[in-house]
């Protein structure tokens, strides 16, 4: 980024008391840093905690389910079969965690930052952006560890892995946009925060992350193809577990819903921003 001169002295450039894009970018980065530091400051293990939680989760599920599910997995190589379920689980859970935390936190951001919104002029479109950025940092760190694990068990990486960032961006866009809509509405109807968390719990178990699709009845399986979370979770499974191209229709549908939600979110904010600021 080019080094622009300090903008505070140019009287005529700034017609409104609105911070420039560059300024907002700095604020965004400061928020991300603050978010990451704050989460682990004062703890001994620091950033390692972001790994411990999913690790425990994965361990529990592996211990409980691997024997049941392991059989059902058509894995790619005989030597990896014993890890098949673990790979299935980890690839699903990491994606789901990024998706659900982003949605849940974005839906709470306006109420959480109310003190700030009431005091400082701040773009409400930009403010919640720090959440997906900070969640991405966590996601990348988790994936680094996952990759190390895969290398250790002799996993063969392929070019198909380049699909992962695309899948990630698409489902994060969807998570953020839906979270944003809920966030705007939650200022007026506070119950929405609880609804989002309950909804995400249900959604988690309604998606084949811990279990495999084969164990649900046929009729349910067709129903499952309408579950947006299934679209991106399955895409991860296809790439990582089965070394296949993700289903294109799933990716397009994810992008479509994400884009639509994004438009709705911004339209909603445009309509309700004044009331939101009054009401918060």
């Amino acid at each position, binding site marked *: 980024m080019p080094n622009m001169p300090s903008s505070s002295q140019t009287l*005529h450039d700034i017609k*409104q008391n609105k911070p420039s894009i560059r300024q907002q970018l700095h604020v965004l980065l400061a928020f991300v840093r603050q978010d990451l530091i704050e989460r682990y400051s004062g703890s001994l293990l620091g950033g390692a905690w972001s790994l411990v939680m999913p690790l425990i989760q994965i361990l529990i599920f592996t211990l409980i389910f691997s024997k049941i599910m392991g059989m059902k997995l058509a894995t790619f190589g005989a030597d990896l079969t014993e890890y098949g379920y673990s790979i299935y689980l980890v690839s699903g859970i990491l994606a789901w965690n990024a998706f659900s935390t982003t949605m849940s936190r974005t839906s709470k951001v306006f109420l959480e930052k109310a003190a700030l919104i009431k005091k400082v002029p701040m773009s409400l479109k930009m403010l919640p952006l720090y959440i997906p950025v900070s969640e991405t940092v966590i996601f990348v760190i988790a994936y680094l560890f996952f990759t190390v694990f895969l290398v250790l068990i002799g996993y063969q990486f392929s070019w198909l892995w380049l699909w992962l960032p695309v899948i990630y961006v698409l489902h994060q866009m969807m998570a953020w946009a839906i979270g944003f809509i809920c966030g705007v509405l939650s200022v007026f109807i506070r119950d929405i925060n609880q609804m989002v968390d309950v909804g995400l719990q249900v959604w988690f178990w309604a998606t084949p992350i811990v279990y495999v699709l084969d164990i649900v009845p046929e009729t349910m399986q067709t129903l499952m193809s309408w579950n947006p979370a299934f679209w991106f979770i399955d895409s991860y499974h296809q790439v990582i577990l089965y070394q296949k191209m993700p289903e294109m229709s799933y990716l397009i549908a994810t992008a479509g819903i994400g884009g639509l939600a994004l438009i709705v979110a911004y339209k909603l904010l445009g309509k309700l921003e004044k009331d939101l600021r009054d009401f918060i």
Partner: protein
Amino acid sequence: MTSFEQATPPVVAVKGVSKGFRLYAKPLDRLKEVILRRSYHQRHEALRDISFDIRPGETLGILGKNGAGKSTLLKLLTGVLLPDSGQINCYGKIAGLLELGAGFDFNLNGIQNIRINGLLLGMTDDEINRLRDEIIEFSELGKYIHEPLRTYSSGMVMRLAFAIGIHASPQCFVIDEALSVGDGRFQQKCVQRIKQFKQQGGAIIFVSHDMNAIKMLCDETIVLEQGKVAYRGAPAEGVNYYYRIMSAAEDQAMLAIDSQDHGHQYGNRKVVCDRVSLIGLGSGSHSLTCGEQAQVDVVFSAQETVMDLTVGIMLRDRFGQDLYGTNTHLLGHELIISAGERKCMRFSFDMHLAPGVYTLSVSLHSQQNHTEDCYHWWDDAVGFEVAGTTGTSFAGVCNLQAQADVVVSKD
């Protein structure tokens, strides 16, 4: 554009701004309104058709009772709230000292908070890096700047907040009662800094209940009443206007007199004091300027005929200390009142007490002192305030109006 006609263009131009709030009985009403498309709210008009502008180097004071719309106006100015109609044009950065400590994270240390708070106040990265040392020095935090904010005392937090705010170098500062930060010496440092900012051409919008500060700092005042500009003009008249609406509404709460508002009273009630008032002849209210003539009226009526009545008054400060008292006996009045009669005694004097909050006590008794036959003693019957000074300013509790001359030394 009108700004071409003026010598200097305004920093902030407010044109016909109105703002109302919808009040809902319960949050659900709001949802009902969206779904049923019927109105479920009451409207509260916080501001109606406000217009003013402020130029570089000017200080505008905003006065008004609680609920007159001051805070709403400030929030509109800083862009935290959006107006219903009208326009607010800002040519430059507005920073509010009402945002003191906005976004402070108590788990981060001082340095990290300077960065976040500075960015939120609209400072650029370069500015923050350049001014960091100056901010730390101004805040007087020393080595504590490396400690997390949760270990700070509240005074230290406010000092840091003010230091950042004042270094944000906007074109216009919005100050909302923020000058009561830290101890007296630090406050003075802040006031110095604000004056310096003004001299360098910065504009200031100042909201305070400290009438003294308004008179000292402002070039112009706006008095808001029920969301409208009720008065606009010079600070001294603005303050007087403000006091008039305050006393009209009998908003005694403004004067920080103890809650025992009508004081403690005793006596044998042979003569009863009905009403006491203290007003300044200039302001026409119970808020006076130091140097202004004060008028005390004591209205009393007799149940029995009294041959040697004395009416006394006593001024006390907020600590209950007697400052000045006198009575009709000392002033050479012989008072006789017959049963059923009603009289008014008027005391006039120049108010030379220093700015502050005071009370007036009244006594009705026989002859010189109240120990023999006390008819009615009324402690802290009314409160009054002295704000600002006419003529030369002075230090201390009262103006003794000293003269200074050069004379030949006798040694």
